Every structure is written in structure tokens, then in C-alpha cells.
């Protein structure tokens, strides 16, 4: 039998050194007794602990996961923890992957211990309540806490980083931690009577606690799972929990019993800030009206109506299909990747983007939410029809000579019927009202094409189409 005595309850290095040597000497777990210096178990151990056996050349590796678990589990209050950890280590030596087997009893036990320690650490971070000693600049902040496991050293750095600019002490029966503004230090545990009994802010804190609680939603069990009663002793707010609960049902009952009041006269009713401003001219009025369109269900999920934009005296009107993700968020047409593609092509064709009016056949973004993205959906005929009123009214406000329909949805809107792009593309077509129409692809179609060659070819065709518009624009400059 080997008798190992560790220096302290949290002596991980001592345990590791001893365990390593024991494993290398093939000492089976049942042949080791672990004690801590000055601890109760030590009384039953022989007066002289076994010397740590010399380690011969052999080495072995354990996974980092075990080291993490062991470092936490060794802080557990269970006196058996050293032995349990050694048993697991002994088995890990020849079976490296065992640590991943969550169903193994040793792995499960060590994992549970580590978890309990981390939970206790987390609760210490949450439930320490400092009390101020002295005032303002010279103040020192002292807390009393009763951890379940040996976690003071583990939990202290958190407070040092958080409250770096104030001197504090956390007193516990186990060990006390101190921060002087520069360094952490530890002293032996003390009794509760050494800690300050109150703080001038506690009454304010209790008032806050009472006010933020909604008596209509009593869920005492949920509270207790997260804030077990064992911690209540040292929480200043805990003293009012019971009266609050007792009062809650009475209050809710009274609130419901009392007939709802008639609305009072508003104390002040200034102009609601979100109301619309009167529109300045026709196109603006139209835009304002369209912002409230409910003619089809597409408005429901979209952010906003994306209306056309451009000079009122434009001779060319470009019609796209519908706004995309970016357009929907920004509220302007053709600002996304397809918009950039369009800008580039217009420039190459010799059309100044600033001289054309750009709009979409359908003014709201249609999509399907898929997790964090929105999948673009093609508008259906009823939606295109419902939205056509806006297109028509834009045409009468702008009075363009040429309308360029980009893509099938746009063509359907411009011609009032389903119009395949392939057959009509690239030539001027007379519209019944005397304007001309030109059909081409939508720039986002170019973005979707596979392969750089196809892309370049189609892009060139698109530019050629736009050149027809450019030529027409030059021929019929609008009278100023």
C-alpha cells in the first residue's frame, strides 16, 4: 500500500507528480491511499507517508481533456476525488480514447465533479455581494461567501479583472482572497463574524429587486433551481423573497378583480412623431402612397416598399424584377450586387445612370426565411398584376420614351402579359401608347451564370442591348 499525502486540498501539482510516478510503477489504484496534510483522513494514515517513487525513463501521454477535467475535479469537496482521478488516469494509460466515452462510470463521475465545481465557481461569480467599508475614495469592498467546493483560488482572478480599480476581499470559511489594486493574495479561512454586516446600498437594491419582479408571473420553482436556497443566507435581497411571494397572488387577484379602468384623457397629445409628412410633388406623393400599399400579401414580411428612383424628366425607364435582400434593407432599387453589375454595363454602353429612372416590376421583396438567410422567391402573376398599378403610375409621372424591361417578370409588367425574354430580346418594340420597349435579361441572371466564359459572353450581349437604348437616348434628347 502506498500512502500519499498532498500539501493542500487543491494541490493539483502534487497529485499529478505522485500519480505519474505511481502509474509508471504500475501501482494499481486499490493499492494507493490519498490524504491531505492536516486533513481528517490523515489521522488514519501511517505517520510517515510513502516517499514518492523514483520515476524511471518511461513516459506516457494523456489527452488535454483529461487534464482540464482533473484540474477542475480536484477542487471538489469529495475526499475520494484523488483516488477516483487516479483510477481514471490508470485506465487511460492504455486506453487513450476512454476519456471520450461519456458512458464510462469513471469518466461520468469525474465529469460530474468537474461540472459541479464549475457551477459553484459560476455561482460564486454571481452571488458574491460586496459591502463597502469606509467611504468613497478610501473604500474597501468586503464580501462573505460560502462555496461548496474548494474554488476560491479558481474564482478569484475573475474579480481581480472585473474590479481592478477597487481594493476588495472575499472572505470564506475555507480561504480568503484579497486584491489591493495590484495583486491577488490569499489568507486562511475565517468565520462569518469577521465580515461586515451591511451596506448602505442594500435597501436600494432590495427596492429594485421588489420592483423588477412581476407578481403576475410567479414561478418560484424556476427561481430556486437557479438560485438554490443554500446561497440565500448571504444575499441581501433574499430577505424579501418570502413576503414578495405571499403578496404576489393577492396583488394579481386584486388587479384582475378591479374592473379595467376607462381610458383616461391623455396627459399630453402632441403630434405623433411617426406620422407622414405631406408629399412635395406627384412622384413623391406616389412614392408615399406606395409605401403603404397592401394590394398583395408581399408587404407583410418585407421591410419596406422599394420604389423607383431617378430624375423626373428621364427619357429612359429601366424596369427590374423585384428588390433583393439588400434593396429591401436599404430601401433603394439596385444597390446590391445586381445593381453594381447594372451600373457597370450602363457605363460601358454609354448611358449615364443619373439620367435614367430605375424601378422594379414588383416593389416588395419576396423571400422564404431559411435560418439566417432569405431565399429569393419569384413573384407570382397575381402579385405582378397587383403591383402593376405602381408601374403604370410611374410611367405616367415620368413619361419616358423608352422602357427597358430586364427579365421575364419585368417584361410581363411592361407588356401586361407573359412575355418570354428569348424571343423579344434586343430590339425596339412599339407599345400601344407610342413609347418604345426593349427587352433584355436581368443583371442578376448574369451573376448566376456558371463559368467566367459564359459570364463574359452574356455580359457583352447585355451591354449591346443597352447600347440600343443609348443610341435612342442620343437621337431624342428631351426638350429642356
Amino acid at each position, binding site marked *: 500500500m502506498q500512502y500519499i499525502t498532498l500539501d493542500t486540498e487543491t494541490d493539483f501539482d502534487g497529485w499529478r507528480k505522485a500519480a505519474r510516478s505511481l502509474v509508471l510503477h504500475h501501482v494499481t489504484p486499490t493499492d494507493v491511499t490519498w490524504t491531505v496534510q492536516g486533513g481528517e483522513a490523515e489521522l488514519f494514515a501511517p505517520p510517515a507517508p510513502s516517499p514518492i517513487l523514483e520515476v524511471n525513463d518511461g513516459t506516457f501521454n494523456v489527452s488535454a481533456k483529461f487534464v482540464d477535467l482533473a484540474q477542475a475535479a480536484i477542487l471538489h469537496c469529495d475526499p475520494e476525488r484523488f483516488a477516483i482521478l487516479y483510477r481514471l488516469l490508470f485506465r487511460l494509460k492504455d486506453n487513450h480514447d476512454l476519456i471520450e466515452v461519456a458512458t464510462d462510470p469513471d469518466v461520468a463521475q469525474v465529469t460530474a465533479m468537474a461540472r459541479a465545481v464549475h457551477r459553484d465557481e459560476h455561482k460564486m461569480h454571481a452571488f458574491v455581494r460586496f459591502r463597502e467599508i469606509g467611504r468613497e475614495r478610501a473604500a474597501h469592498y468586503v464580501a462573505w461567501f460560502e462555496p461548496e467546493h474548494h474554488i476560491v483560488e479558481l474564482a478569484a482572478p475573475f474579480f481581480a479583472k472585473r474590479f481592478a480599480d477597487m481594493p476588495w476581499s472575499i472572505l470564506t470559511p475555507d480561504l480568503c482572497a484579497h486584491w489591493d489594486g495590484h495583486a491577488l493574495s490569499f489568507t486562511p479561512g475565517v468565520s462569518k463574524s469577521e465580515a461586515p454586516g451591511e451596506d448602505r446600498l442594500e435597501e436600494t437594491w432590495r427596492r429594485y429587486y421588489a420592483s*423588477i419582479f412581476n407578481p403576475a408571473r410567479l414561478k418560484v420553482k424556476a427561481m430556486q433551481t437557479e438560485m438554490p436556497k443554500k446561497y440565500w443566507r448571504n444575499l441581501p435581497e433574499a430577505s424579501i423573497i418570502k413576503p414578495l411571494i405571499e403578496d404576489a397572488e393577492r396583488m394579481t387577484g386584486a388587479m*384582475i378583480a378591479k374592473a379595467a*379602468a376607462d381610458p383616461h384623457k391623455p396627459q399630453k397629445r402632441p403630434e405623433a412623431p411617426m406620422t407622414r409628412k405631406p408629399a412635395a410633388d406627384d412622384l413623391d406623393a406616389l412614392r408615399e402612397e406606395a409605401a403603404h400599399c397592401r394590394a398583395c400579401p408581399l408587404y407583410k414580411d418585407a421591410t419596406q416598399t422599394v420604389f423607383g428612383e431617378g430624375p423626373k424628366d428621364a427619357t429612359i425607364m429601366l424596369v427590374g424584377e423585384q428588390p433583393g435582400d439588400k434593396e429591401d434593407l436599404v430601401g433603394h432599387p439596385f444597390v446590391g450586387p445586381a445593381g453594381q453589375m447594372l451600373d457597370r454595363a450602363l457605363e460601358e454602353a454609354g448611358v449615364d445612370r443619373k439620367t435614367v429612372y430605375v424601378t422594379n416590376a414588383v416593389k416588395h421583396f419576396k423571400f422564404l426565411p431559411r435560418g439566417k438567410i432569405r431565399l429569393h422567391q419569384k413573384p407570382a402573376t397575381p402579385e405582378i398584376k397587383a403591383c402593376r398599378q405602381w408601374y403604370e403610375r410611374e410611367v405616367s409621372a415620368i413619361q419616358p420614351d423608352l422602357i427597358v424591361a430586364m427579365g421575364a417578370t419585368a417584361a410581363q409588367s411592361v407588356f401586361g402579359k407573359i412575355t418570354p425574354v428569348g424571343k423579344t430580346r434586343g430590339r425596339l418594340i412599339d407599345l400601344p401608347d407610342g413609347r418604345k420597349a426593349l427587352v433584355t435579361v436581368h443583371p442578376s441572371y448574369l451573376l448566376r451564370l456558371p463559368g467566367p466564359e459564359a459570364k463574359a459572353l452574356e455580359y457583352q450581349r447585355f451591354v449591346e442591348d443597352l447600347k440600343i437604348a443609348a443610341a435612342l437616348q442620343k437621337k431624342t434628347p428631351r426638350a429642356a
Partner: protein
Amino acid sequence: MDVQRKLEILADAAKYDASCASSGTEQRDSSDGKGMGSTAPGMGICHSYAPDGRCISLLKVLLTNACNYDCLYCVNRASSNVPRARFTIDEVVKLTLDFYRRNYIEGLFLSSGIIRSPDYTMEQVVSVARKLREEHHFRGYIHLKTIPEADDALIAEAGKYADRLSINIEMPEETSLQQFAPEKDVRAIRRTMGRLRLKLDEAEDSRSAKTKAKPQRFAPAGQSTQMIVGADGANDHTILRTSANLYGSYRLRRVYYSAFSPIPDASRALPLRAPPLLREHRLYQADWLMRFYGFDVGEIVDDSAMLPLDIDPKLAWALRHRDRFPLDVNRASREELLRVPGFGTKAVERIIATRRATTIRLADLARLHVPRHKALPFIVLSDHRPAPHRLDAAGLIERFKPKATQLGFGF
């Protein structure tokens, strides 16, 4: 009026907002010795719990509960008879720092009634954050409520100081908002959410860009929103559809569901019954299924368009899809395992790691932290196979229903 009294009024006025978390922000601390505070990456810290079961991690207050608007569901509406109060900027700053120093809180959640104009209100809210960050070098968590349609520059500044920004959608459907809050405009709320998302995206792009320029800071904990449940007639399907849309459109971190709570001095247009807390709980579970388990809204809710109250939505789904079960735990894919009642994401990870090394048996379920009772009818293990008639039995659902119990205080 003294600060304590103001605190009572302005915390009371804020308690119907369900957002409380202090999670998901960047890691910061004050170890440089300048100022105070730190943030926990990942999970935030709940410093206390109220008897309503909700965590208290932030000083959650309104700057003022005076409001120009008259939203019927809101205790602070213009026509409500509640006592009014208004904090000064310095009062909120001092309370935050004093509470923080004693380790009562993780930081501040600041909202406000809308006074004068959205810009004026937003400017006041931002001032508190600015003072905390720039004058006191406060490194704790700050959550600011964004006022719809406030000026872009103010929103940018808010995002510079705040960890999280939020703006409440309030109602699942536009029609209910029109009915209950005629002065609020869903489009304005959505437009503001859209602007927040664009700014969040920009900040993210600037972080991943390989330039030397300092990445732009904008609300590292993202944006969230709240929806009030049970004040209007919207069904669960509508509510979850709205959430899915909000998550997808604006990259929200969280949608909070707040069961409509009877409020003091309530308007006659509102229900006065106790809040449907269980319904709220089921909605959170369903929301969780959408975000972490790959469920679609359409799968979660059946034709009734309401979630069952007696069993959780995943179990309800499994009972509707018995043909997909039982699943062999030692063989099924991750996606399949995630759909087994009682299997959480962590348990599924443990199962996958474990089965690489060994076969999983009945006795192992406890160590994998899987509730046997719930999972057994749906799974096959090397030493367990549910009798085929069990899964087909019409009475299977009864097995899962909670036994009727007296609701008590647990004291």
C-alpha cells in the same frame, strides 16, 4: 422625488420587457486598471433571480416612464394613471456604477418612454451610455433600446457604446399593432431593424477585412426584439412565422416572447386574465427548435396552428411522425438524433463521441443525461427495442402528459 422612489417607479415600468440576458458580447475587462467592469464571453452571468423565475443580470430601468404614445398594452401609455418619474442622466450612471461595484449586476439595460421626439429620446439614452463608457470607463454590459426612426448618427453612436441594441416588434401582426398601438408603425420598426442589420453586417465585414484599419465597433452582442403574446388573437403559427422572418431578415440574436401580463390600470380593450405562461414557454421551446435543431415553422405547428400545452413541441412532432421511429442510437445521423424527444444538442454530441468507441446501452442513458422516460419509445439500443405496438398505440401520448398537480409555492 428621491432616487430610491424613482428607481421603484422606473424599474416597475421596465419589468414587462422580457429581455434580460447579458450574453454574447466580446470579451473585455478592466485589468489595465482604468475604470471598472468586464464581460463574460458566451454566457452572461445572472446575479439574482426574481420570484417570477426570471434572471436579474442587469439594472433594467426606463429613463422616464412618461410617454407621448398611447399603446394599450403598455403600462406607461399616455392615458395610464401610473405615477411618473424621470431619472437624470447622472442618476442612472451613478446607480449603475454603485450596483456594479457591489456585484449586484452585469450592467445596464436602458429604455425610455418616447418624449418630445424619437431623436431627443434616443439622444438622452445614448448620453447615459456615453458617460458610462467615456467618463467612467465602464466595461460592463450595456443594452440600449433603440427608438424607431431615430437619426442614423445616433444609432451609430448607440452601437459604438452598447453591447446590444433592441427594438420591440411588440405584436405578431401589423393589424394588431394598428389596433393596440395606433401611433406605432411596423414599417418604421422594421426599417430600423434593417438599418441595424446593415450596420451589424458592416462591422462584421470590417472585422474580417484584412486591412490595418481598426475594425468598426457596432453592438457586438447584436440585436434582439420582443413580441407580446396573448394580447391579440394571433395563433402560434403566426407568431413563429413572424419570428422566423425576423431572424432571417435582421439576424436577430433573440426574439423574446412576453406573455401578456395584466397591467395595473389596464385599458378595457385588453384581456384581464392571468398570463398564459405555459404558452410562452412552449413558444420558447419551438423557437429553440427552429434555431438549433433544424426545424421549420411548418413542421413545428400542426393544422391547429397552436402548440400543444400539455407536451413539448418536439415530442408532439415525434408523435405525429411515428413512422420515422424507432431510431437506432448507435447508427442514426446527427440530424436524426436531434429529432429524438429528450435528446438535447449536448447529449447528441456526447452520443456521437461515445459510440465511436463503444456501443450505447440502456444503462448508459442516465450518464448521457437523457431522460429515459421520454426517449425510450422512440429509440433502439443494443439491449432495447420498443415493442412495435407501443409506438403505434393511440395511448402513447398519455404516457407523457404531466400528472395533474396542485400549483404551489414550493415552500
